[in-house]
C-alpha cells in the first residue's frame, strides 16, 4: 500500500465519520460545526482529485460561506422548539433501507462506469489556445460553457430577491443587519486585521484565474466573507437595499457578460463568442466585474433580508 493511498483511505474514513456524526448528533449547533469540518475535509479530497479550482470553491463557498450561514441560523434558532414529531421507528427503517439501496445501486454503477472513461479533456486542451487562457477550467467556464456561468451569476439575483422579499413591508428599502452579537474587542481586532489580507487574496484569485486555479467565484466568495466579517463586527453598516449604486453593483457582472455576449453576435458570429484575438482581455474584463458583483450578491445573501426600517 502506497502512502498516497493511505492518505486517501484516512481522508475517506474521516469524511464519512464526520458526515455520520453531523447527521446523528442531537444538537443542531454542534451539527453545524461538524459540517464546517466536513467542508474542510472535502477541500482536501478535491485536492487529492487533482481539482484545485473546485477545492478553492469548496473552501470558500461550500465550507466557508455555507458554514457561516448555517452557524448564524443555528445560533438564532437555539431557542426554537420543533413541534413536528420525529418520524417513527418504522419510517426510519424504511428510509434507512431505501437509502442503503440507493447507495448500493449507485456503488454498482460507479464500479460499472466504462474504462477508459469518456472525457472531454482533449477537446478542451485542443481549443484552449483560441481563448488565450492557461487554466482549462476557466476556459470551460468562460468560453465553452459561458452560458452556464452567465446563468449562474444571474441565478444569484432571484435568490437574493427571494431573501429580500422576506422582509417586513415597512422595512423595505432599509438595510439588512448582520451584527447580532455584542461588540467585542477581539472580534473588532480580527475584523480590522483580516480583511486587508482577504481582499488581496480575493483579487489575487480573480486575477490569477485566467491561467492558474482561481476565478471570479472563488475571489468573489473570499471578498464576500471579508465584507460579512466587517459587518458582523459592526465596523460598517450594510447598505440599504434601495440604494441605486448597490443595485448597479449587483447587476454589473451579468450585464457586462450579457453585453459582451451579445456583441459576439455581431463581431464573432455567435452569442457568447469572443472575436479572435480579443478573447483573453474580454474574459478578464468579465471576470473582474463578475467578481465584484458576486462578492456583493453573496455578502447580501449572508446578510439576509432588510430588517431596519428606512429613516
Amino acid at each position: 500500500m502506497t502512502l498516497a493511498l493511505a492518505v486517501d483511505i484516512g481522508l475517506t474514513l474521516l469524511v464519512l465519520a464526520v458526515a455520520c456524526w453531523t447527521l446523528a448528533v442531537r444538537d443542531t449547533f454542534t451539527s453545524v460545526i461538524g459540517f464546517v469540518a466536513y467542508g474542510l475535509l472535502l477541500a482536501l479530497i478535491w485536492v487529492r482529485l487533482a481539482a484545485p479550482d473546485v477545492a478553492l470553491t469548496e473552501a470558500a463557498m461550500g465550507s466557508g460561506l455555507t458554514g457561516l450561514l448555517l452557524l448564524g441560523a443555528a445560533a438564532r434558532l437555539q431557542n426554537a422548539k420543533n413541534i413536528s414529531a420525529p418520524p417513527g421507528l418504522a419510517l426510519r427503517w424504511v428510509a434507512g433501507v431505501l437509502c442503503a439501496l440507493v447507495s448500493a445501486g449507485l456503488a454498482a454503477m460507479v464500479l460499472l462506469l466504462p474504462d477508459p472513461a469518456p472525457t472531454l479533456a482533449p477537446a478542451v486542451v485542443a481549443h484552449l489556445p483560441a481563448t488565450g487562457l492557461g487554466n482549462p477550467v476557466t476556459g470551460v467556464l468562460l468560453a465553452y460553457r459561458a452560458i452556464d456561468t452567465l446563468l449562474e451569476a444571474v441565478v444569484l439575483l432571484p435568490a437574493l430577491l427571494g431573501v429580500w422579499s422576506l422582509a417586513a413591508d415597512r422595512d423595505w428599502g432599509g438595510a439588512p443587519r448582520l451584527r447580532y452579537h455584542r461588540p467585542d474587542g477581539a472580534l473588532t481586532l480580527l475584523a480590522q486585521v483580516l480583511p486587508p489580507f482577504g481582499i488581496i487574496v480575493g483579487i489575487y484569485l480573480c486575477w490569477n484565474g485566467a491561467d492558474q486555479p482561481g476565478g471570479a467565484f472563488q475571489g468573489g466568495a473570499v471578498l464576500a466573507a471579508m465584507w460579512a466579517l466587517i459587518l458582523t463586527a459592526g465596523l460598517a453598516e450594510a447598505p440599504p437595499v434601495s440604494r441605486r449604486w448597490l443595485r448597479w453593483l449587483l447587476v454589473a457582472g451579468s450585464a457586462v457578460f450579457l453585453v459582451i455576449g451579445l456583441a459576439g453576435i455581431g463581431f464573432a458570429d455567435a452569442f457568447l463568442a469572443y472575436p479572435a484575438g480579443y478573447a483573453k482581455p474580454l474574459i478578464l474584463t468579465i471576470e473582474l466585474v463578475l467578481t465584484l458583483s458576486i462578492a456583493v450578491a453573496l455578502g447580501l445573501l449572508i446578510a439576509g433580508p432588510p430588517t431596519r426600517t428606512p429613516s
Partner: protein
Amino acid sequence: MSIALGLFTIFAVVAGAFFFLAGTVGLLRFPDPLTRLHALTKADNLGLGLVVIGLLPQVAWPLGAIKLIAIWLIVLFAATTVSQLMARAARDGGPPV
C-alpha cells in the same frame, strides 16, 4: 546544500507533527477547559508554525513562501482571537452545547 535543507525540512515537519500530537493529547487528557485551551493554543500554533517553516525550502520563492507565511500568520491571529473569546466563554460558563 539541498541535503541540509532537506534535513531541515524533515526535522521541522516532524517536530510540527509532534506538537499536533501533544496538542491533541492535551485536549483529551487535561481536566478543565482552560488547561485544555492552554495545551491547544500552544501546540497547534507551534505545530503549524513548524510545518510552515519546514516547508519553506520546498516551495517556489518568493510567492510560495509569502503565501505560507501569510497562512501561518492568519491562523495564528485567528487562533489568538478565538482563544480569548473561548477563555471568556469558559470563564462565564457559557451554555453547554
